[in-house]
């Protein structure tokens, strides 16, 4: 899933200064799971903004809140049609994709990002998420025992550990495991160390020309949600 962190309250307060009526918009998928922008966080942020405004005494924002099932899919945005007429901006607690989906769907509406989208990852333990995938477009996990060196090695090295690893940790962050120590140990356990002995050439960055587009291989009739049909 996508993992994000809510922006500091002061930054959010600065962003909304030009707008009177602010809709705080949560997202029911990833942002809910990572505690950054689900219904609960929308409600907390709503209260925090009201309290801050009351303290400052000279602001006149009015806030409303709503949480979509998903912000990143145009069909889930339809329910906003009758909500956005009454607001001057949407403060989105969706990820960067959600913010952009809103901006595309509502060309005349200012959309503000309420979270910093951080990475694709997974819950490591309660309240802790770790990055796991860099969306490189060229998955090599078969070669590396299911542990991604592009994401988990700070240098994205493909051919084994650098000399900076110590106590199984990374030179850039002593709390983080060295990806190549993990890969070695797991390949050894799987009796596949020959995979580490192979030479891996430089990555092909054309596998991920940005911005990237993927077209479904399934029948276009089924998936076509083009503008004419919208």
């Amino acid at each position, binding site marked *: 899933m996508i993992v994000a962190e809510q922006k500091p309250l002061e930054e959010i307060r600065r962003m909304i200064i030009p707008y009177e009526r602010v809709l705080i918009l949560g997202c029911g998928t990833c942002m809910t799971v990572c505690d950054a922008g689900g219904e609960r966080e929308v409600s907390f942020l709503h209260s925090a903004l009201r309290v801050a405004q009351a303290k400052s005494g000279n602001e006149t924002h009015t806030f409303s809140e709503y949480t979509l099932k998903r912000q990143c899919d145009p069909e889930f945005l339809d329910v906003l049609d009758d909500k956005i007429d009454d607001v001057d901006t949407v403060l989105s607690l969706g990820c960067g994709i959600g913010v952009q989906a809103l901006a595309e769907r509502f060309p005349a509406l200012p959309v503000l990002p309420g979270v910093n989208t951080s990475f694709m990852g997974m819950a490591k333990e309660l309240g802790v998420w770790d990055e796991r995938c860099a969306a490189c477009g060229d998955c090599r996990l078969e070669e590396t025992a299911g542990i991604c060196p592009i994401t988990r090695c*700070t*240098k*994205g*090295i*493909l*051919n*084994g*550990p*650098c*000399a*900076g*690893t*110590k*106590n*199984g940790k*990374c*030179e*850039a*962050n002593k709390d983080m495991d060295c990806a*190549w*120590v993990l890969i*070695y140990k797991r390949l050894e356990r799987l009796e596949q*160390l020959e995979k*580490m*002995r192979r*030479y*891996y*050439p*430089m*990555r092909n*960055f054309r596998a991920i020309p940005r911005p990237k587009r993927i077209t479904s291989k399934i029948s276009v009739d089924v998936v076509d949600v083009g503008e004419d049909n919208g």
Partner: protein
Amino acid sequence: MANSLFEEKLNSNEFLVTTEIGPPKGADVSEMVHHIDLLKDNVDAINITDHQSSVMRFPSLGGCLLVKERGGEPILQVTCRDRNRLALQADLLLAYSRDICNVLCLTGDSIDVGDHKEAKPVFDADSVQLLRMIRTMESGKDMSGEDLKGALKFCIGASVHPEADFIEPQLIKFEKKVAAGAQFFQTQGIFDLASLRRFMQYASQFDVRILAGIIVLASARMARYMNDNVPGIIVSEAIIDELAGVEKGKGLEKGIEIAARLIKTIKEENLCHGVHIMAVGNERIVPEILEQAKLPSMPTKAQ
């Protein structure tokens, strides 16, 4: 073109001594030139570091040009941290065009340990890929398969960490570097000769030259700091105790003594093919270390 002077020496059976100079932070190169002049006739080659510890400095290529100007033999350290494959190849072309043919291929320290922590880390290549890149260029093609105008020939090396606390994956990487064409290795700092002996028992099966890295420590505090903060350095407790045992102000003297002792033993026991002295900011004391280690100043340079 003929082999570089350093490559010829690698192919001889001489005990080799290299050292390194870290360029200044700034355009005033007078101290670096002074160090080059001081060292060039005492060693077989001088490495110029490439923003070591990810701290922005005068470039390694610029330092190598100065070594050439002063009549020394440079080893260009190239890391993959700051340049993508276009820039790496271009720098190598420039180096070769100026007769800088010895290259130490490194992945490079993480951006996070340096002084520009917000910079974009590049790492388009790693050290093994860089070695292969150079061999590809020598075949007359660039990394896109296009013809290169004019022949190239480099003498290439890499690093290895015999004292790594988990050696097996490091050895796999070492073998990949050998297979990629590395001719010489300058090791990470050696503090415990037992680990060097173990490593050489294994490494002697490969046709490569190993120069043991000797880091000159100036105090127990510096040793502990390096253990905690400098990637790839593991100073043994025995060495730290030895440094801690001297009176204040005598640390560097002790560091020189330790370095000289290590070098002397490595040479006497013929443990490996030479040493690479890293004086970390104290470049001026390298001749004294060689003197104490009873290594004659370069007879071959004087001929």
